[in-house]
């Protein structure tokens, strides 16, 4: 039996759970705000359980930098507030550039970040090597480093939000796929699952790369597409690698978790999976990543890979997220299209989106990321101009 809800959230990833927690704990909505979260799988099955756990404030637009400064602040207090160890380590993020063009881009972005009060600095390849002595820096012409970025272990983040949401009377139903959504005359929805049907005044689709499938159930079509990204983890090593290291031109990123393992990925040539989410592991990823990592840090040659896996990026046509009510389906909201950065953005996006859904003032991202920009007749736009994407 699933209880009727004021807001039903489809997707129990970090975005859905963080949203549920923020909605349920928002005082403005207290007294009768019934929140239900449904998901077709177990917690951490989707992209929230498959990502590298990076949390950085280095972005290229002021809005994104400021959002991520706030998100980082939430992350920094998360363990204490939620009473769960999320293995957070703030060793910074090092961006390396091979070409002058990429170095100039970093320079431009560092200027934006400085205006927001971040300590990011352009550094020379030699200074990068002082930070990470294992680096072979010959191919690089420039770098930037922000010491307060960091990493978390994604799984306990989900338990933290889930347990806190449950304490605020949120009903979380895992292994409960939504199979049909009917629009009720006069507003609201009836949601069908194998565990029964329930009513919801509003729906928020937080299903990441699976969001288009959920939206199709109300007859809506979302423009985002899934793109498979792969990632690997090595045996645990003694702590040696301070920052997350990323290479602008290849999309390579690698960090050492508090558990000791190296975790990293790299972009492969984009492959059209025909709109389907595909999660198979490929040898081509393992060999491409291994070659890139060994040339980046030659001393890692004898380090052993223990596991590789895949997760979907959720790409919108202009690269910006899609957040808000669908113009054609009143009461049906989406929060998706985060292009591999949904995990690190979820704490802050969920906070402001929940405040808005509870009657608060809309954050500026709600106009920048509105789904209305994709309705027929709206002239295409360039997106927010964010260029610090990894992968």
């Amino acid at each position: 039996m699933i209880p009727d809800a004021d807001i039903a959230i489809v997707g129990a990833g970090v975005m859905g759970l963080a949203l549920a927690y923020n909605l349920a704990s928002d005082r403005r909505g207290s007294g009768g705000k019934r929140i239900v979260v449904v998901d077709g799988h177990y917690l951490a099955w989707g992209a929230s359980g498959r990502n590298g756990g990076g949390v950085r404030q280095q972005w290229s637009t002021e809005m994104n930098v400021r959002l991520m400064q706030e998100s980082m602040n939430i992350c920094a207090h998360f363990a204490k507030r939620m009473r769960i160890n999320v293995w957070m380590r703030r060793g910074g993020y090092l961006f390396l550039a091979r070409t002058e063009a990429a170095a100039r881009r970093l320079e431009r972005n560092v200027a934006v970040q400085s205006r927001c009060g971040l300590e990011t600095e352009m550094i020379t390849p030699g200074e990068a090597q002082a930070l990470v002595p294992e680096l072979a820096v010959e191919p690089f012409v420039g770098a930037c480093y922000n010491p307060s970025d960091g990493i978390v272990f994604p799984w306990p983040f989900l338990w933290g939000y889930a347990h806190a949401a449950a304490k605020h009377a949120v009903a979380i139903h895992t292994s409960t796929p939504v199979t049909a959504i009917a629009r009720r005359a006069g507003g609201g929805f009836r949601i069908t699952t194998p565990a029964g049907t329930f009513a919801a005044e509003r729906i928020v689709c937080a299903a990441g790369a699976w969001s288009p499938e959920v939206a199709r159930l109300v007859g809506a079509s979302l423009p985002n597409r899934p793109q498979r990204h792969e990632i690997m983890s090595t045996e645990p090593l003694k702590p040696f690698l301070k920052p997350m290291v990323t290479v602008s031109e290849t999309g390579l990123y690698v960090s050492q978790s508090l558990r000791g393992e190296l975790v990293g990925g790299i972009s492969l040539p984009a492959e059209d999976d025909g709109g389907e989410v595909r999660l198979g592991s490929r040898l081509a990823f393992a060999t491409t990543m291994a070659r890139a990592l060994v040339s980046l840090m030659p001393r890692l040659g004898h380090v052993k890979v223990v596991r590789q896996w895949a997760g979907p990026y959720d790409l919108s046509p202009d690269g910006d997220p899609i957040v808000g009510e669908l113009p054609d389906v009143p009461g049906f909201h989406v929060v998706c299209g985060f292009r591999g950065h949904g995990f690190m953005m979820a704490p802050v996006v969920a906070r402001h989106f929940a405040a808005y859904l509870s009657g608060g003032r809309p954050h500026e991202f709600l106009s920048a990321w509105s789904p209305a920009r994709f309705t027929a007749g709206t002239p295409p736009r360039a997106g927010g101009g964010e260029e610090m994407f990894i992968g």
Partner: protein
Amino acid sequence: MARKVILCRCEDVTLADVQHAVRLGYTDVEEVKRYTGFGTGPCQGKECLRGIVAAIAVTAARDPSTLAPFTSRPPLVPTELALLAGAGAAPPRPPKRK
């Protein structure tokens, strides 16, 4: 006698950890893996999976045959980056006979 029973040596997961996860409602192998981190170290579950499944089955009063193992990920055994980096490159030519 010490009461601490270690089931996953790589990640230091104890019987009490598994029982705690089950009490929170995580009764599938994949859920317990994610909640406790068991099976994510160098052995990738080869040593610990049976013991953990037995602990879940007993604690959750589930028939062990309903507990599927977690998804097995490549590589089959821990593999050096250098070996993977060399894979796919042209094989060395055999020495020419003089």
